[in-house]
């Protein structure tokens, strides 16, 4: 999607990131009785200049992971290295200068803007907090930003409620870009918008990526929406990454059955095509991340599941071309590749994991 992906070096690296939320019960003293395994050992890298799509259903941990990337949450375990610096354990004060580089766009345009503040103040707040320029300069910068996102400079003095959902989302984008960040995590930025406005905002994000030399992590639940913006896509399920692939490859050759089902769920506005394709409708809801299923977490809803799937968790295996997937019965993989990467199923999950650590190419393959 962007021409800057030739840069290719990792801008952000997540290593074995774990984020659990405690559930406390107790009469007088609250004790932790269980944990929500929101993000359960995720290793991922985001390359400079690219757009990484992060896709999954509600409750899979994608929003939590996105927030961990920008350190809105402290990590339970694991490491996050941003632009060569380990930011996993930094205090809030130490993180402050980094906030200029790492920004976030939120999902709900109706809830993420303070209704009591004017647009100019909302977009200008980051500039003010980091002491950039004087009042006049800030105002000019804000007005420039407003124009860049497709609003007009006169909107500076209006309140959020005077705008539509799509426009509010543009304000959110302007705010995120005020500090000229390097990495922007967009958490379901278009889910709350009408499909015609979605297209506008997606186009806007793509344009801005060129102008501002941005790297995006684009979080969504819809594989259709991310297709347009992503260079690579990671699919998450119940706190784990189950597949990562260059974008087009994912749509042509999904390896993990969950990805196949996600693709099948995206509506096709063409009745004949839609009728012709095989619809895989997943049963039930995503199970609770408090007590994830044993073995492969997707096995209760997978139509290809066998015994091994209930016992051993499949590791992320590299199938070549930067395409990794975690499945005991991978789809769309020819016999040769399968033989090459075969995993000994008698190993314990930990051993299998160790042996099959992803050998990702350090530079993009294609």
């Amino acid at each position, binding site marked *: 999607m962007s021409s800057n992906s030739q840069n290719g070096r990792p801008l952000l690296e997540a290593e074995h990131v774990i984020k659990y939320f405690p559930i406390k*019960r*107790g*009469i*007088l003293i609250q004790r932790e009785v269980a944990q929500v395994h929101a993000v359960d050992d995720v290793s991922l890298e985001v390359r400079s200049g690219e757009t990484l799509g992060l896709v999954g259903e509600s409750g899979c941990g994608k929003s939590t992971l996105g927030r961990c990337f920008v350190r809105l949450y402290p990590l339970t375990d694991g490491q996050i290295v941003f632009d060569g610096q380990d930011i996993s354990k930094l205090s809030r004060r130490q993180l402050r200068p980094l906030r200029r580089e790492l920004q976030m766009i939120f999902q709900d345009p109706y809830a993420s803007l303070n209704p009591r503040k004017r647009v100019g103040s909302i977009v200008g707040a980051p500039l003010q907090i980091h002491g950039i320029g004087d009042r006049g300069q800030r105002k000019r910068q804000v007005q420039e930003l407003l124009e860049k996102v497709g609003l007009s400079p006169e909107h500076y003095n209006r309140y959020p409620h005077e705008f539509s959902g799509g426009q509010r989302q543009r304000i959110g984008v302007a705010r995120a870009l005020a500090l000229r960040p390097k990495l922007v995590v967009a958490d379901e930025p278009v889910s709350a918008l009408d499909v015609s406005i979605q297209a506008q905002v997606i186009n806007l994000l793509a344009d801005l990526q060129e102008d501002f030399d941005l790297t995006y992590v684009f979080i969504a639940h819809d594989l259709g929406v991310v297709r347009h913006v992503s260079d690579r896509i990671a699919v998450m399920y119940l706190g784990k990454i189950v597949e990562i692939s260059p974008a087009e490859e994912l749509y042509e050759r999904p390896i993990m059955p969950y990805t196949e089902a996600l693709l099948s769920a995206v509506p096709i506005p063409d009745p004949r095509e839609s009728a012709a394709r095989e619809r895989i409708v997943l049963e039930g809801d995503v199970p609770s991340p408090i007590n994830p299923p044993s073995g492969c977490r997707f096995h209760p809803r997978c139509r290809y599941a066998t015994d091994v799937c209930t016992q051993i968790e499949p590791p992320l295996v590299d199938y070549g071309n930067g395409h990794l997937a975690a499945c005991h019965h991978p789809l769309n993989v020819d016999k040769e590749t399968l033989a090459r990467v075969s995993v000994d199923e008698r190993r314990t999950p930990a051993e299998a994991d160790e042996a099959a650590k992803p050998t990702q190419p350090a530079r993009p393959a294609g």
Partner: protein
Amino acid sequence: MAAFIIRRLLWMFVVLFAISVLVFLIFFATPGVDPARQMAGRNPSAETIKSIKHEFGLDRPLPVRYGLMMKHMFISRDLISYGSHTRVIPEILSATPVTLSLVFGAAVIWIVFSILTGVGAAVLRGTIFDPFLMILALIGISIPVFWLGEVVNLVTQSRLHDSFLFSWVPPLGYTPLTQDPFMWFKQLLFPWLTLSVLYIGFYARVLRANLIETESEDYIRTARAKGLSERRVLFRHTLRTSMITFVSLFGLDFAVLVGGGALLTEVVFGLPGVGLLTYNSLTSLDLPVIMTTVVYAAFFITLASALVDLLYAWLDPRVRLA
């Protein structure tokens, strides 16, 4: 749910303990204050001061003194008022039924009328009745209860006392229910009405606002889409959810009143309740009584607060899982 109840009750005891310690420290540990002198009331003799010092072990360390105070208050219950020289605990216990009668009666009246007014105003929104009722409510909130009480007395006890309207009104005072129910009722009627005016006004406004807010909720729209009658939608859906706030507020107001908050009403109407007792003890700086009434009031408020939380959980299932 059981864990929830136990937790609330335990917290209640913790709060009561904290309040009793705080009260104790205010009276006995404030530097520059001679507690014995204070407790001896006005113009004490040297012997009184000495006997107090001994009885309360004022030469003993603070925790011991606290323990002694608590013992006098709760266990041996022989704390003596230095104003009336009678035991405090029985005094409070005999004042309690008066306050309870006053507050329960007023509560019944105010609940009924505030619901009528609040629902009426919400249903009649858009007509002249809505603002009319709300202005009445506002007047009710704005009238100071002691002024209203005195005016009521003026009218019923003196000016119009001889007319047929009010000749049945007895002199100010209180007769226990068990002794003479009719007298009890007649003496309490006007205090009830006076006390409830303020609360009717407040609760009618709160309820009306809540009803209007709930009206715009999606589930009310669903209820109508189901083809339910307007009356059913109003009572079973809109009112039912609006009552949650109403009940929580009610619980706390009620608790404060029971704890002695109706003191203005009691003074004006000469009802010897806990409020009047507190008032008298404050004017005469009768420390044992003040302390006991404070702890008594705190007890009722924390108890009511715990009960309100439980009631809230019963009314709103979403809270239960917490």
